[in-house]
């Protein structure tokens, strides 16, 4: 039964993650008083891109073409490692959080390499920022999950999330609140959402993620966009597991709650994007430091 | 009845602040000072209350001693204020040092705060509840801040700000220390009465008590001017009007010392007197050394006196920390220091008014320009350095004797060395001011208001050097005994 739920989760993640982007865009449109794009717009985009050929600049090498491929395979591994709320991941073992972090790191690494491979100054700038910010976001992520692992005594993601609220809310509430706050900031930063990055802007000077993939087209771009949606799903799932203190002990019900949670998070992101302004680039590291400090506090609190 | 010593100055102070008593302000000030002094005299003539374990306010031996000192000193300062404030009536004044014009603080605020200062200090002396004591000590800071900034110019504002911030922060730490004592006594003692605490001290948690005392010594030590928390003291003492400096040095520092003594009472009752006494001695020696270093090359005579206060607070801390005979000596020293330093600051006020500079090297020939003031200055120099015919000689010797009797040779040696350095540096700086030829023709009279109060204080100190009455010895021994000789 549990295995079934895990499989269903992966299938749903693969099929529904582009919808998350649609939900975010729809919420933003509502806030702005527009009708907005169709909810399924990303599916249409992906379909269109998959039917196009790619144009490669003559200055690029094989690195440029591997980037999207490695990216999507890495995030597929990540999806199978991440639990959704109380639903365990497809694969779970002690220390899988480190693999998760490194798989996401590999994805970033290849994207950065591909961006640098184009030799464009703009893409290089974006790559530089991406690396700088991830330098701060990654320890925060590991510290946050570390805090959860200390307070549950478990060392695999599924184990941590499965037993997080098992002893009642009171024992872990402060830690969970801190980790949730920290994860939310990391989620926004890692997925290039406002206030860190604006996915809709086309001003290369201030962009981070989008600027790195300017030169990709066709199938490559489809891979990149799909991978980004899946990555968003991974972080939403991590966040929901901490922020949603529910445990039903029926895997399918837990799965339903988790799914609902992921889409609520998407709506929350939409609200955040509609109500906040993008931070100055100078302030982004400060925000990430705050997230790291929150995670640190969570660790301290769990260690007491 | 005991409350009268708080209420008389408090009511008078609030009344003075009202705008319609313009003419009577100085009369009210003097009247309140006399009233306070007579109330204190009456209270002191009665036997001490037995150590009531749930009284808020009561008079015990250390409190009585410091209350009496405060009252007498305030009477002298109030008398001095009559003459001083008449000269300051004119609201726009020229700065003595840099020559710019500034406006004084409104007179009613100054006199009112002066009286409230007395009220809060009296409350410190009679508080038997550690929380109430803290409230009173913090209140002394707040009401004395306007006194320091009476001359509203940039230097006094700077001094006031440092005083306010550093002392408030320090005192907040002392409050934490008091909470720690309460935590140590949880389940053992109810309430924060000092006698209840000393009775139950043996059963208290020593870890909490030690932490509490460290916080108390940092907190009250800041207010008392113990090095290295003394930074505010020279600034505040040098920039405030001289009669305020006299009160700060002679009375306020004692109040903080009393707060520290209350902590020491609990510690020695808990059998931790070694620990707390050691800390007191350490900070005391440090204060003496720091003061000595800063006095060597001092060029401002009010700052010189301020550093001398740091030194003498160090001596008090050493005496209290060593306990026994040294503690009795420390009590006597508190009396001597308050009166001597009060006298010196009042005399310094006269010097500043006549010579219009605080620079030691620019003041020469005071004996020619202001004969009585000059005599008092030289006499004060002898008194403050502990030269023989004056009271400080006896008290410093008593503390030294206590240290040597207790086998604290190193403490005694460092103490003597610091005293010697301070004597030499003061001897280089203070007496030359009295002799020589005055730099400019200074035509000033010495009004009775300006010389009588320091003269009276000086005579008291001289008498204390020649003969200490048995009743005073008894009072000192009682006060030292209350701290608990360890």
């Amino acid at each position, binding site marked *: 039964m549990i295995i079934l739920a895990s499989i269903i989760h992966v299938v749903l993640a693969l099929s529904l993650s582009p919808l998350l982007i649609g939900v975010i865009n729809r919420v933003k449109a509502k806030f702005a008083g527009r009708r907005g794009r169709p909810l399924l717009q990303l599916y249409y985009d992906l379909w269109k891109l998959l039917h196009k050929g790619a144009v490669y600049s003559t200055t690029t090498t094989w690195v440029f073409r591997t980037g999207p491929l490695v990216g999507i395979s890495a995030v597929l591994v990540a999806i199978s490692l991440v639990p959704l709320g109380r639903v365990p991941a497809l694969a779970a073992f002690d220390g899988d959080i480190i693999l998760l972090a490194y798989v996401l790191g590999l994805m970033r690494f290849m994207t950065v390499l591909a961006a640098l491979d184009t030799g464009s100054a703009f893409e290089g700038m974006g790559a530089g920022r991406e690396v700088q910010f991830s330098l701060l976001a990654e320890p925060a992520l590991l510290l946050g999950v570390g805090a959860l692992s200390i307070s549950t005594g478990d060392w695999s993601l599924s184990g941590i999330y499965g037993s997080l609220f098992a002893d009642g809310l009171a024992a872990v509430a402060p830690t969970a609140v801190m980790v949730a706050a920290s994860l939310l900031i990391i989620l926004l930063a890692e997925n290039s959402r406002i206030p860190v990055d604006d996915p809709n802007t086309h001003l290369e000077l201030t962009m981070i993620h989008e600027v790195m993939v300017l030169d990709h087209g066709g199938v490559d771009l489809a891979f990149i966009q799909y991978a980004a949606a899946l990555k968003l799903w991974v972080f939403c799932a991590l966040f929901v597991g901490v922020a949603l203190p529910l445990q039903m002990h029926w895997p399918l019900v837990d799965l339903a709650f988790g799914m609902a949670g992921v889409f609520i998070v998407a709506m929350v992101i939409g609200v955040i994007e509609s109500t906040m302004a993008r931070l100055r680039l100078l302030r982004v590291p400060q925000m990430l430091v705050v997230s790291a400090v929150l995670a640190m506090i969570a660790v301290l609190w769990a260690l007491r | 009845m005991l409350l009268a010593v708080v209420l008389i100055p408090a009511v008078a102070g609030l009344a003075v602040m009202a705008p319609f008593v313009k003419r009577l302000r100085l009369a009210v000030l003097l009247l309140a000072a006399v009233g306070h002094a007579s109330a204190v005299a009456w209270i002191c003539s009665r036997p001490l209350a037995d150590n009531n374990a749930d009284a808020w306010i009561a008079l015990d031996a250390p409190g009585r001693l410091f209350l009496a000192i405060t009252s007498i000193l305030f009477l002298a300062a109030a008398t001095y204020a009559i003459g001083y404030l008449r000269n300051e009536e004119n609201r726009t004044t020229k700065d003595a040092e840099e020559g710019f014009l500034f406006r004084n603080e409104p007179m009613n605020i100054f006199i009112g705060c002066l009286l409230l200062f007395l009220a809060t200090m009296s409350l410190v002396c009679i508080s038997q509840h550690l929380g109430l004591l803290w409230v009173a000590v913090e209140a002394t800071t707040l009401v004395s801040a306007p006194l320091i900034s009476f001359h509203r110019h940039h230097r006094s504002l*700077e001094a006031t*700000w440092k005083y306010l911030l550093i002392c408030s922060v320090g005192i907040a730490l002392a409050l934490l220390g008091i909470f720690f004592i309460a935590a140590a006594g949880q389940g053992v003692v109810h309430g924060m009465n000092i006698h209840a605490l000393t009775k139950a001290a043996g059963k208290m948690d020593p870890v909490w008590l030690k932490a509490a005392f460290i916080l108390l010594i940092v907190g009250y030590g800041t207010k008392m001017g113990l090095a290295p928390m003394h930074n505010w003291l020279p600034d505040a003492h040098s920039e405030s009007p001289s009669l305020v400096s006299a009160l700060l040095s002679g009375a306020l520092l004692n109040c903080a010392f009393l707060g520290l003594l209350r902590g020491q009472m609990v510690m020695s009752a808990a059998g931790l007197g070694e620990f707390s006494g050691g800390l007191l001695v350490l900070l005391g020696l440090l204060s003496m050394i720091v003061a000595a270093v800063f006095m060597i090359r001092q060029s401002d005579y009010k700052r010189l006196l301020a550093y001398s206060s740091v030194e003498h607070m160090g001596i008090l801390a050493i005496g209290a920390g060593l306990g026994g005979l040294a503690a009795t000596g420390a009590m006597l020293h508190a009396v001597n220091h308050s009166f001597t330093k009060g006298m010196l600051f009042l005399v310094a006020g006269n010097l500043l008014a006549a010579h219009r500079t605080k620079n030691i090297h620019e003041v020469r020939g005071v004996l020619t320009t202001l004969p009585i003031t000059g005599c008092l200055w030289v006499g004060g120099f002898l008194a403050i350095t502990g030269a023989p015919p004056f009271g400080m000689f006896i008290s410093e010797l008593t503390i030294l004797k206590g240290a040597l009797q207790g086998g604290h040779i190193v403490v005694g040696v460092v103490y003597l060395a610091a005293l010697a350095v301070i004597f030499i540096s003061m001897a280089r700086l203070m007496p030359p001011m009295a002799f020589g030829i005055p730099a400019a023709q200074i035509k000033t009279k010495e009004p009775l208001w300006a010389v009588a109060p320091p003269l009276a204080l000086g005579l008291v100190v001289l008498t204390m050097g020649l003969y200490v009455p048995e009743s005073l010895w008894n009072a000192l021994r009682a006060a030292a005994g209350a701290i608990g000789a360890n």
Partner: protein
Amino acid sequence: MSILTDLLMMLLVLTNLRMLASSRVAVCIQNVAIQAVVLGAITFSLSAHAAIAAGVIVVAISTVAVKGLVLPWLLRRAMKGAGIGREIEPFVGYASSVLIGAVLLGLCFVIARPLRDTSHAGASMLIPVAMFTILTGLFIIISRRKALTQVLGYLTMENGVCVFGVSLAVEEPLLVEMGILLDVLVGVFVMGIVIHQINREFDHIDTDRLSVLKD
């Protein structure tokens, strides 16, 4: 220990971090006010088990009223009077302040350990958090230039001390509690006056430029 107390403690930690992170004086003032409300709430949440004494209610309400309403109002007036909206150049930058704050918090957990073991008070989290609040206040006092920000640091510290008092369930009589509160009120009032005068005399309130008096 109730979950409410735990969350309130967490909130206190967060306000401290916000204090360290923000350059806007108005935000810091708001922070101090929030802390006062948290302080009042902690008083209630700790005594939730026992019957709440009338004195506790009076103290909690007047704490919130004085530190949460009156003092912020006074401080905001002082802020407008001095015409400063931001602490422009602190001695320690904001990101580093926050990191130092995290280190300080860790330190407090370590320091508080021996005290906690011997403590009879049940609330184990209160001691390190109170300590952290005190250290945050002290750090702000030494790392910021503006006199007004230093007053805010002092208030933060004072709040920390009060959390301590509350956490140890020190049964201060009403009179003393009120005396402490009155002292803080008058203290900030006097500091506000001095800041006003400093601003008038110097046209700034940068305390590091108050450096005439020295040896």
